[in-house]
């Protein structure tokens, strides 16, 4: 009779246990509630114009969230995200002000960012540096590069030659939505596909869940970790380009603190900072909650300071909720374990 409990959980239970679907649903509920509250407080919240703006605010947070989620799922962290955003912004802007074709500049920028990603991956996976330290180093380096490319000045305007670039990354629209939104959506689809449907994605989860077990099963954990850092670098690069296109110039402190916003978007969406668990669907929820709070509180007239405090509280509470749920799970697991042995 006591064996009944050690049987496999129900189908639905299994579905929800996998990858943390439960937290995604919780976050989705939270998002709906927030939208309803802000909608009631301020009917303009749901106006077409605001929704468009809101989505455009969410897009970059979603992108860096995707990158950080990849890295968190491998059981690591990427602190260099914000600096890579800044580096991407400054490198591309500097090249464009020097008269380089914008698309060539974009390609060069992408390569620079990928180098940082590969470096992160090598330091962490190959040389076993603690990810916090390794990416703290590259964070400082990338910020330094952002400062040095234009001799410690923000750049001038990237000029009329870059109108096509600005149109593509910022103010252009397709089907009524800003391009920025389409770009992040497209990248989300690609990276979500990779994470959920390909062998690389599976290896990323396995690496984060139990690196040694993955290695013994023939998974190349160095490759999977490096790939995750490269995804993060690509996402940060695109955000840097968006920032550049938005302001029409390069700013040295672009992307400041973004690495932590990315952590927030990930964990609100249920990505575990301990690795092995999380869904990019959750990152969408996390980034949206972030954006809705920013936007809604702004609408409600709350000053920046209050916005910061509210968002900080949300981050802590969402993770706290998760911890409480998990410790209950752990308790049940132990009970089952005791049952398993006679």
């Amino acid at each position, binding site marked *: 009779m*006591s064996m009944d409990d050690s049987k496999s959980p129900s189908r639905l239970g299994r579905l929800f*246990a996998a990858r943390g679907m439960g937290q995604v649903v919780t976050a989705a509920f939270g998002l709906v509630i927030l939208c309803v509250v802000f909608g009631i407080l301020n009917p303009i919240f749901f106006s077409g114009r605001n929704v468009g703006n809101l989505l455009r605010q969410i897009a970059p947070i979603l992108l860096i969230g995707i990158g950080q989620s990849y890295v968190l799922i491998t059981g690591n962290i990427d602190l260099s995200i914000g600096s890579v955003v800044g580096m991407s912004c400054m490198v591309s802007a500097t090249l464009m002000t020097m008269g380089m074709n914008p698309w060539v500049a974009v390609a060069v920028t992408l390569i620079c960012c990928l180098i940082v990603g590969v470096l992160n991956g090598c330091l962490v996976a190959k040389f076993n540096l603690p990810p916090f330290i390794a990416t703290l180093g590259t964070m400082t380096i990338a910020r330094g590069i952002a400062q040095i490319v234009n001799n410690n000045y923000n750049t001038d305007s990237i000029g009329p030659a870059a109108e096509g670039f600005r149109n593509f990354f910022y103010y252009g629209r397709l089907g009524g939505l800003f391009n920025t939104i389409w770009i992040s959506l497209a990248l989300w689809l690609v990276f979500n596909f990779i994470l959920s449907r390909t062998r690389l994605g599976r290896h990323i989860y*396995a690496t984060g*869940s*139990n690196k040694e077990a993955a290695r013994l*099963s023939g998974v190349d954990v160095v490759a999977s970790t490096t790939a995750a850092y490269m995804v993060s670098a690509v996402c940060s690069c695109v955000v840097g380009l968006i920032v550049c296109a938005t302001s029409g110039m390069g700013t040295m402190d672009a992307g400041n603190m973004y690495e932590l916003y990315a952590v927030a978007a990930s964990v609100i969406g249920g990505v575990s900072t301990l690795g092995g668990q999380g869904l990019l669907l959750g990152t969408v929820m996390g980034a949206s909650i972030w954006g809705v709070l920013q936007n809604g509180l702004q609408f409600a007239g709350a000053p920046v300071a209050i916005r910061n405090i509210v968002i900080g509280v949300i981050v802590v509470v969402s993770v706290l909720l998760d911890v409480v749920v998990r410790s209950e799970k752990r308790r049940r697991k132990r*009970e*089952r374990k005791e049952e*398993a042995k006679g």
Partner: protein
Amino acid sequence: MSEYIVELEGVGKSFAGIRALDDVSLNLKSGEVLALLGENGAGKSTLMKILGGIYTRDTGIIRVFGEEIDEMTPKRAKELGIAVIHQELNMCTHLTVAENIFLGRELLRSGMLDDREMNIRAAEVLSRLNIDIAPDTVVGTLPISKQQMVEIAKALSTNARILVMDEPTSALTSKEINDLFHIIRSLRDQGCGIIYISHRLEELQHIVDRVTILRDGKYIATTRFCDTTMAEIISNMVGREIKEKFPRVETPLGRTILRVKGLNAGRQVRNVSFELREGEIVGVAGLMGAGRTEMTRALFGADPKDGGEILLDERPLRIEKPMDAIEAGIVLVPEDRKKDGLCTKLSIRENVALPNLDILKGALSTVNSRGEREMVERTVKNLSIRLSNAEQNADSLSGGNQQKLVVGKWLAREFRVVLFDEPTRGIDVAAKAEIYHLMNDLKTRGLGVLFISSEMPEILGIADRIIVMCDGRVTGEFPAGTATQEKILECATRFEDKLGLAAGD
């Protein structure tokens, strides 16, 4: 091609200057089960890790199917058809059963993961093994014994021709062990070669054809199982004879030390009452889910209690956290050494000192390093822990020596009651005997000893009084003299009636 599918010749391996293996040879034929035996730290796991490509050998030759292999890697081993089930569970707990089984060799359909196919194939493997688990269950939600079965399924699903099982049964239930033996026999009949490592010597008769014995990293002997006796095997392993399997000392019963009344903690501990007296070892027997571990955890303050009274030497105790229990003189030797027993990334010295820092306090609350060193030396000597140096990480010890370390760190301090939860799991015959002697010694010193075990012969052989638990309740109690396996089993299966009628107890 020679008659052997695996030949290891003169294999040597050192860790930081300490010889773990010295000129060891081993041969495996196809269609046989070879038992690899030896004390804790004899080098069994190390040898198998060399065969599996996880460690590289310093010297020696490896031949697989007659082919000499220069550089063995996990990947190469897999290609050669070698599958190793390691002593420590190695699963990605966040992934599902099927995902774990196919990890590293996922099935693809037009470049995408083919989860449907993998689930179907995993279900086939599981049903061949008689394991009742859905392939899309997340591994972390399974009990340890089921996880172990998944690990076995994973190894078998590779269609390996050479299978290494490093203590596969230490976490399994008796039904699962039977299923496993069934599988082993059928694999053997299909021509696979199986190397089987276990400290449960009584298992061997069911499956084993030949035995190879190691001692202190050296090769001792290989014999056919039917040509040898258990006594011979043991003396080869230990280097001397073990006279009594279950040494027993008689001591007069004294005062009651610990009295537990109506202890309740969740579903797993319901109204448990018992007492512990001077001069006796109380054994706790039971089946799956009997709540024994839960009971000790609640008693020790590791889990919250819902109610109940605890009296130590007739004084009521309030135990809300482990520190309360330790201060009162109750210590717990937990069953899961990796998770609850040791800080595996700390050194042996630090592990021994950790619960005893109050004793080792020097001036200004620093740790008295001389006292610490002496304590470690004493512990290592008393329990004959096999180590190269007390500064090595606890997880570099062999499995059985880790277990001894968990016991040792508590025995280094003064206490009144010790709760042993499966103290002999995964340790060799000689070390088992040492633990029994130790318990007897504690008993004669008038300390309270509570001893949980799932091995019937052991509990019948050592305990003076046996409590049987089932479904979180105490369902029986026998003095050692009158207890039998049948009686214990009868009580251990006395589940509550589904209608809610209490079973007569």
